[in-house]
């Protein structure tokens, strides 16, 4: 069993993973000010509630798009498990051919999700991850990571608009309205966020297919997917656990015991 942690810009998830399956998962807020000791205490609490003894964990792996939290996570996990976790960063074996200008610039979360999606679906692929940002990753028929798009996430965008626009309400609840054409402020904003993003995902898939010259399989993960994907006209496979699955795959590929061929 291993500990897998993904830190996003807003939220983070921790999973205790046994052979690619989650024994339990816990979500927590990304707090840039918390110390390693505070995070270790939090993780110990999650493990206790999940019925897992931290000492029984064989190792850990951490991906973080918040660079300043990488050393904090490393220390927290080491404190909890007694083993140094693997960090998702440049130099890690991923099995992906990354064909972008500077592969080291590619967000760790994009790599992790791509590794998991590739294993499950044959290329070419477009992978959407809808969180703080909505990212689109494009993998071609040869399995090469070709690049993608970074789009403001819908929650972040709606909240920013509410703050900037004098006549719009703050902290709106995003529920799908009955009609595309809204007839009050709240429904207009909800339709804009939900139908707008659904239309965008459909249109991006079409444009990527034209650029690649072949049809793609569409996969989506991230906390906001279930809100938007039901309104897409394209078939998009929802895969909520792609990040944790990808972290497990990367752990297997990179853990010393594994590479030395030692059986657990």
């Amino acid at each position, binding site marked *: 069993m291993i500990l897998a942690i993904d830190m996003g810009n807003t939220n983070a998830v921790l999973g205790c993973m046994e052979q690619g399956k989650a024994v339990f998962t816990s979500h927590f807020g990304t707090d840039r000010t918390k110390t390693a000791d505070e995070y270790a205490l939090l993780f110990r609490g999650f493990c206790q509630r999940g019925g897992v003894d931290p000492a029984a964990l064989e190792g850990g792996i951490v991906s973080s798009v918040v660079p300043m939290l990488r050393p904090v996570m490393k220390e927290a996990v080491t404190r909890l498990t007694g083993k140094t976790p693997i960090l998702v960063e440049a130099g890690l074996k991923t099995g992906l051919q990354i064909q972008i200008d500077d592969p080291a610039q590619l967000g760790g979360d994009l790599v992790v999700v791509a590794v998991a999606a590739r294993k499950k679906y044959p290329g070419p692929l477009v992978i959407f991850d809808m969180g703080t940002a909505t990212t689109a990753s494009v993998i071609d028929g040869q399995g090469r990571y070709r*690049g993608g798009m970074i789009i403001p996430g819908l929650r972040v965008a709606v909240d920013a608009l509410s703050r900037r626009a004098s006549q719009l309400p703050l902290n709106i609840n995003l529920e799908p309205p009955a009609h595309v054409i809204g007839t009050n402020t709240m429904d207009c904003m909800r339709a804009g966020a939900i139908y707008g993003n659904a239309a965008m995902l459909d249109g991006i898939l079409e444009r990527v297919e034209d650029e690649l010259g072949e049809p793609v399989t569409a996969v989506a993960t991230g906390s906001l997917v279930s809100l938007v994907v039901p309104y897409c006209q394209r078939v998009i496979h929802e895969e909520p656990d792609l990040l944790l699955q990808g972290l497990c795959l990367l752990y297997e590929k990179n853990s010393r015991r594994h590479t030395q061929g030692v059986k657990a």
Partner: protein
Amino acid sequence: MIFVIDIGNTQIVVGLMDGGTRKDSFRLATDRVKTAEEYALLLHGICSMRGIDLKNIEGGILSSVVPVLTPVLQDAVESLIGRRPLAVGAGVKTGLNLRVDNPGQLGSDRVVDAVAASARYKKPIFIVDMGTSTTVSVVGRDGSFLGGLIIPGLRVSVDALSAMASQLPLNISLETPDKMIGTNTLSCMRSGVLYGAAAMLDGLVARVEKELGEPVTAVATGGLGRLVVPLCRRAFSYDPDLLIKGLQILYEKNRPAGEAAV
């Protein structure tokens, strides 16, 4: 000549209209703390710099989505031209049947856009205005205002993302990337924002047509429309002066009885 003023959440557009023709226009930053005296000084100064004689201005009209600034700009203009400009809102004749839940809640910029588009394009019309927010307004075949969508604007959204995401650059310039599939952080963000918006508009036009059961004329306005419309697959008429044309139309419609056009 009249003053037409559109107070948006980020910028104030001031146009000088003579009949249906735009003689000049300029922009000010929307500053919610400035006083009427400060705005009057600003308007006076910019007009004199651009050779506009305030004596030739017979009146004015304004649309505002920033309620706190509506009387401030009305006071400022009144102090310059001796006449209080009309503010688009309750009591102003628009000629549009507003078929929304609460017409008082409807942003006056969307009403003005719809007035201008109704006068120029075949109905039903899908109007997208890309500014602080990207608003979609739908005018039905019979000329009724049917409602629409409010989407976070491109600039506001991308700046909010930059502020939230540790590894993304701040204050990026929005330029059309040469390829759709970005291969570095900046080209990924530009592609995401611009191609994403274009894909969204195409899809929303199709969805609105489906809901109405008939094809629409698609019209785009707002500064960012210039970057997005060329990336759309649907044909959009790009009409950057839609709002100020609409304000001119509303000024004429609401001119006091007996007062002739100059």
